């Protein structure tokens, strides 16, 4: 199988980040079209294309844009979420570093659609190369009249400001990101009100992912029908998957949605590292339920197939795990990540993530008992399903519980009481 490159067609060209090169490959054509039509028409095209947000939740993009109220006197804001940080996910970084103009173009289209005259590019603070690449592209776009006042004489104004986060995974959650942009701690907000009604500076706001914005210019340029024919009926288009773990060629791959998971692993990624057998795959970032090697055989990379396997495409991060991997250790490290990144607002998350981490640490050190394993599962039930403001504690549960249930023998093998029982002498028959 081959990749289906739409967003990433020119990503490997050494000049892909330059404005002149981007223009030479039909760059900004989609924006020019958008500037010549009505906002409602742009939203209609994006709706018709079936594009679903690429940040993790998969919410239809056109529908999200249509929620912005039209006739209110407040300014409207558009934000690009470039705070990529889910363990396993590294796809957006490539788009930011190599194709920044594609993102800017998508943002101008989105801004026109919702009537926003100001936008922010919120990028994770560690991505220094991306920050430089993006700032350079923004400056170039201003100089060329693609940003700023009266873009290309269309009468539409749009200013774009780059804003660096400062190391908090939670700021990838849209309301935490908004708080961070307002100069606050990245604490998620209660919803409703949703950002579409009351977001940044309490004004109507749309937040979309880097890959979502990168897709929009192609839809405007080539049409909704063209796009909706790619992929599956409910998951149209291509998607970028970042593959890590035990494969020969880890990296970012753009494939048609609906492609079998094992084709991605075996064909594009060159199969398993050192030819070890496949043990499991986490198909959409650390927060989504793990698939066993057997389940992987029937899983396709689209929203429907993943739902049928009781997992998700999430942020497009495929973590491939080979035989011989210590799943107790990897699960502990995931839990440690969530404990570290919990913002601390809600008790089930603040206490739960830390507790789960500590219990897994105990188990991995051979000091745990079966009661600890049961306690993790009990805690998990209290950390999910709306007991917290945002889904970070649900994400921790997603990273821990399915692995414990599907690979229980590995966790049980590490328990102290099990090892102890095996060593206990059989009591002598006393007889009565």
């Amino acid at each position, binding site marked *: 199988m081959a990749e289906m490159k739409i967003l990433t067609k020119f990503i490997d060209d050494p000049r892909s980040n330059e404005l002149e090169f981007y223009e030479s490959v039909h760059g900004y054509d989609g924006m020019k079209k958008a500037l010549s039509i009505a906002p409602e028409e742009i939203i209609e095209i994006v709706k018709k294309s079936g594009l679903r947000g690429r940040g993790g939740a998969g919410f239809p993009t056109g529908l999200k844009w249509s929620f912005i109220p039209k006739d209110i006197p407040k*300014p409207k804001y558009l934000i690009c979420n470039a705070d*990529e*940080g*889910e*363990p*396993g*996910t*590294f796809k957006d*970084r490539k788009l930011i570093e190599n194709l920044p103009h594609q993102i800017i173009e998508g943002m101008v289209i989105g801004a026109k659609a919702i009537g926003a005259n*100001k936008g922010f590019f919120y990028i*994770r*603070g*560690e*991505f*220094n*190369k991306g920050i430089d690449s993006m700032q350079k592209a923004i400056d170039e776009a201003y100089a060329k009249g693609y940003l700023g006042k009266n873009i290309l004489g269309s009468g539409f104004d749009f200013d774009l*400001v780059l*804003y*660096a*986060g*400062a*190391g*908090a*995974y939670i700021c990838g959650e849209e309301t935490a990101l908004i708080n*961070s*942009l*307002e*100069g*606050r*701690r*990245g604490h998620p907000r209660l919803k409703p009100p949703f950002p579409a009604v009351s977001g940044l*500076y309490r004004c109507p706001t749309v937040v979309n992912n880097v890959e979502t914005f990168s897709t929009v210019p192609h839809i405007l340029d080539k049409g909704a029908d063209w796009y909706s024919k790619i992929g599956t009926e409910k998951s149209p288009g291509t998607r970028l998957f*970042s*593959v*890590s*773990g*035990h494969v020969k060629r*880890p*990296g*970012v791959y753009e494939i048609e949605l609906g492609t079998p998971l094992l084709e991605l692993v075996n064909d594009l990624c060159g199969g398993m590292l050192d030819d070890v057998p496949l043990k499991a795959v986490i198909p959409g970032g*650390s927060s989504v339920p793990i698939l066993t090697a057997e389940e992987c055989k029937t899983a396709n990379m689209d929203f429907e197939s993943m739902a049928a396997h009781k997992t998700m495409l999430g942020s497009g*991060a495929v*973590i491939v*795990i080979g035989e011989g*991997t210590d799943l107790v*250790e*990897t699960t502990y*490290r*995931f839990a*440690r*990540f969530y404990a*570290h*990144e919990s*913002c601390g607002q809600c008790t089930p998350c603040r206490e739960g993530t830390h507790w789960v981490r500590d219990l897994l640490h105990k188990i991995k050190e051979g000091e745990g008992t079966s009661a600890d394993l049961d306690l993790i599962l009990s805690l998990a039930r209290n950390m999910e399903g709306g007991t917290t403001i945002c889904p970070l504690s649900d994400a921790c549960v997603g990273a821990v519980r399915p692995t414990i249930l599907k690979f229980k023998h590995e966790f049980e093998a590490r328990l102290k009481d099990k090892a102890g029982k095996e060593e206990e002498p059989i009591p002598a028959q006393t007889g009565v």
Partner: protein
Amino acid sequence: MSYQFSSQSVARLDKLLEMFPDKRSVILPGLYLLQKEQGFVDREGMEALADKIGSPISLAQVYGVATFYTLYNKKPVGKYHIQICGTSSCYMRGNDKLEKHICSRLGIELGETTSDKKFTLEEVECLGACGYAPMVQINDAYYENLTFEKMDEILKDLT
């Protein structure tokens, strides 16, 4: 004596204050400027930042933000701040072994700074480079697909 921003940083702060509808948004980029100037953020610097942004922003608000985010160093670090990613994808590609290797090369434990103040080594959570593991961030740059040999070369170049 209270902290004094350089004239260059003051000019940048003035520009930032015009860029946002609410000047509170300047806290995060302002802290970055402070860190760029002295390598870390401290109380005096935060106080100066709060004063520069002006009422109603107080030191408490700047401090609350600085302590929430991990990229602001709350104490001085070595000239080269080595941050090794410890999350699972990196673990699966041997970050634990690399970590031990760096510790032994530098003669320090995780979280410590070498006695010549040149290197600080810390383990951090996901740096978003999972496909290029194991990896470290040293100051502003990522170093990926590391082996012991590559790491030795990098450390040698920085010494």
